[in-house]
């Protein structure tokens, strides 16, 4: 089909009226409550101004008033589709400050839970991306599978979405006796559905036409904007904290970092960002399989801790690879049982800031897709 290039308009030669269009905060495809102020020339986007803060729930203010363990539920509610991954850097940071080594079994369960949640999050990302492109059915196929993953979480923690499962020094509860079989069954199902989605959506001609060569993000711009996760890897930068700066026990597993290669378009387009997510699901499956194999059956899931958790005075920045990118917590301790300050480096917050840069000159319909390919969760953008 037609050559789709970014359209540079030369306003010295043509004169045209431009229209300012308000997209959101209530709009079917702004992934929540993002508001975009878009300037359109016909159908071509000439300017995008994101307005955020419609979900500013002031988690950081709450964190100052809570004790360290009490902050964890608020962290769950930050990026509500990847709660397990959110909890991990926070508890790791406190554990590092306290100097605790968590039991071996806990490490494995944490990794498995994080990877399962990564799959669940990527499923939502790809599903809603398909929805933005007008394909409704893949959305439901992914959600069908996601329910099975949530069932595992529910068996372990009692909650479907916001778990409060990783505690400082361990876990809230031990996993179900049939945990290993359940997880392996899910891995099988995830692979099956991914195959199905690849046929139905990813390699669909219309879908490729819509997403290839759209919203190209060059690697140097991505790094300058501190993008991370699939957005950065989609631009061809091989950077994953699980490999580059292994935390927890990620150095024990064998897995690859998928990067965008521009198979159907240019490196760093929407399709690349999307395919990175699809391939990461496969890598997560690999990690889960290895972890299930190595995981010890016996063992305690909670370290003995003092009643009041009082980390030493000082500050720490801990980051981990969230499904959406690198999520960091900057925790300042003043020696009491309440943190002085907990600042979250929201992955989506940083990734979203690149949107005005990469969406100029494309069509309005492309803008929606570019936004979808960045995969933001407004809870984390606004915190």
């Amino acid at each position, binding site marked *: 089909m037609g050559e789709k290039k970014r359209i540079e308009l030369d306003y010295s030669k043509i004169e045209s009226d431009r229209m300012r269009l308000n997209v959101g*905060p*209530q*709009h*079917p495809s702004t992934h*929540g*409550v993002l508001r975009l102020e878009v300037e359109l020339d016909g159908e071509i986007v000439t300017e995008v101004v994101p307005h955020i*803060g*419609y*979900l*500013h*729930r*002031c988690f950081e*203010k*709450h964190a100052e*008033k809570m004790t360290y363990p009490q902050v964890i*539920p*608020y962290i769950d*509610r930050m990026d*509500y*589709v990847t709660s397990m991954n959110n909890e991990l850097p926070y508890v790791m940071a406190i554990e590092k400050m306290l100097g605790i080594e968590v039991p071996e079994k806990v490490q494995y369960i944490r990794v498995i839970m994080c990877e399962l949640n990564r799959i669940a999050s990527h499923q*939502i990302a790809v599903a809603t991306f398909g929805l933005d492109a007008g394909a409704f059915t893949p*959305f*439901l196929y992914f*959600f*069908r599978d*996601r*329910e099975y993953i*949530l069932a595992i979480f529910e068996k372990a923690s009692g909650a*479907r*979405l*916001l778990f409060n499962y990783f505690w400082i020094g361990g876990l809230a509860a031990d996993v179900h006796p049939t945990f290993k079989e359940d997880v392996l069954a899910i891995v099988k199902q995830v692979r099956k559905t991914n195959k199905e989605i690849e046929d139905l959506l990813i390699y669909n001609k219309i879908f490729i036409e819509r997403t290839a060569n759209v919203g190209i993000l060059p690697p140097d711009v991505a790094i300058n904007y501190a993008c991370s996760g699939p957005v950065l890897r989609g631009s061809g930068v091989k950077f994953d904290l699980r490999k580059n700066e292994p935390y927890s026990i990620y150095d024990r597993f064998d897995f690859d970092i998928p990067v965008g290669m521009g198979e159907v378009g240019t490196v760093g387009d929407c399709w690349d960002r999307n395919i990175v997510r699809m391939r990461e699901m496969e890598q997560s499956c690999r990690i889960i399989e290895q972890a299930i194999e190595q995981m010890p059956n016996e063992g305690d899931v909670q370290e003995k801790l003092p009643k009041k958790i009082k980390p030493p005075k000082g500050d720490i920045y801990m980051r981990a690879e969230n499904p959406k990118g690198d999520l960091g917590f900057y925790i300042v301790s003043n020696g009491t049982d309440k943190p002085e300050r907990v600042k979250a480096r929201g992955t989506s917050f940083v990734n979203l800031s690149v949107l005005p840069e990469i969406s100029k000159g494309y069509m309005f319909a492309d803008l929606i897709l570019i936004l979808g390919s960045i995969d933001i969760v*407004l*809870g984390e953008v*606004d915190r």
Partner: protein
Amino acid sequence: MGLLNKLNQPYEAGGIILGTFEDILNWGRARSDWYLHFGLACCAIEFMAMNASHFDFMRFGTIPRATPRQADFIMITGTVTLKMAERIKKLWEQMAEPKYCISVGSCANCGGPYWEHGYHVLKGVDRIIPVHVYVPGCPPRPEAFQDGMIKLQKMIKEEAIFRKRKKLEEETKIELSA
């Protein structure tokens, strides 16, 4: 349409016809609720799960509409911030009568976990728009959403269209005597 206005005359007699007619009208409204999904936060993800194959919200005869003009009820799912509150009010005003509101999750009901220090959180969406059904939970399970939907349908079914005042009087009499 003008149909309702004409029938809404204060008839003294004709209870059976109007009563049956009322039932049919209420049945239609209760069984075909199109919703404006106002996804705000965590509950919106649960709501998406609710829409999906396992729970299938469309079983209740609901269809998602993107525009408030065509929606019958609004589903507030998530934390309402002060910045957002004015937009919600505006959307509510844009909806066509008869309209209903379901407030889902602790945040929309009362501020939820953010009630104490949340300087930017509206402590309950009922401070700006009327709420017909509250669904508790943080976030509620999809089953709770379904229960909320059934409650709303029940409420619509028992609504008075004709001779509202008389029905209200009767109801209060029953309440007072009980």
